[in-house]
């Protein structure tokens, strides 16, 4: 069976929709998480792209497919190159071994999917 064309976009949007209940039932928790994310990924000594590359590496290490999708999309929007993604995944695999390598392939697929979508929108 062929893989769906928008696998990671569908996955991230599904997760976002699923979180809507928590936004309503525990808004302070969700706001706290949002504020944490905003503070942690803002430009500083490390720029936002470098921080998102770290987040992608940790998403792979944690085997979190939705996280891989969100951070791959963020990296596309921040102008990351495929070489920057690949070198980050190299470090991830060095530290995490074979299982990380398997999810590194997912990260590449997610980045390519969002890159292709962005290219087709702007073409």
């Amino acid at each position, binding site marked *: 069976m062929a893989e769906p064309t928008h696998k990671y*976009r569908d996955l*991230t*949007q599904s997760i*976002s929709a699923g*979180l*809507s209940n928590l*936004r*309503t*039932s*525990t*808004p*302070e928790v*969700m*706001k706290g*998480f*949002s*504020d944490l*994310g*905003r503070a942690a990924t803002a430009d500083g000594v490390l720029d*936002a792209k470098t921080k*998102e590359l770290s987040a992608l590496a940790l998403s792979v290490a944690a085997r979190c497919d939705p996280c891989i999708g*969100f951070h791959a*999309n*963020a990296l*596309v*929007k*921040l102008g990351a190159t495929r070489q920057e993604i690949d070198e980050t995944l190299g470090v991830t695999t060095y530290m995490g071994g074979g299982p990380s390598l398997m999810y590194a392939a997912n990260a590449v697929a997610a980045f390519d999917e*969002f890159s292709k979508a*962005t290219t087709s*929108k*702007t073409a």
Partner: protein
Amino acid sequence: MKRRWFNASLLAVIAGTLVACGGGDGDPGPVMAVDATGTSTFSAGNLAAQLGTYPLAPLSTAEADSLAFMREEEQLAHDVYAVSATLWNPPVFANISASEATHSAAVKALLDRYQLPDPLTGLPNGSFNTPAFQALYDALVTTSRTSLIEALKVGVQIEELDIRDITAQKAGIDNADILMVYDNLLRGSRNHLRAFMKVLTQQGGTYVPQYISQAEFDAIVNSAVETGP
């Protein structure tokens, strides 16, 4: 009325509502309230609280462009209906004009959240940054002045245009906070289309859709007011 005043007032309302809420746990309430006529109004306080629960993800060029576009398109609806409200008796114009001001403000809240410039800064009602919106506004106001029936048809036309444009722009948007606001804008536009069509039919007028299919148009008009997401 200068928009600068309007924006400052809105921020005061948002700040006041947040203070009143006390920032405690619990459901912040619906982002949009819908009355029996279908008039769909954003709650600035509830929207601000809801937006605070979303991550601030990076923005694509398409998303930034879309926010600027929708800010002007929603404001155009307000400005046209505000003129009609001074010309014609049915309260639908004043009611939906007031509602559209909150739709435009909701998009402005997103522009502020992403620290993007507001294309309408410093412009009075009826003036737009984009020439195409200015031309559309001028044409629609000219038509609205000719008769009540034509003004109501302009109302249906604007809502139909909004439905087409928001639907198309959603395809290029990933950020969940923007999609949440756009989904509410869409629901509001469907409700406002129903409201204008109801009064138009009562006045003996008819309308042929220009931007969406007849089947989609009929499905909206023949369904009930949408009170929830």
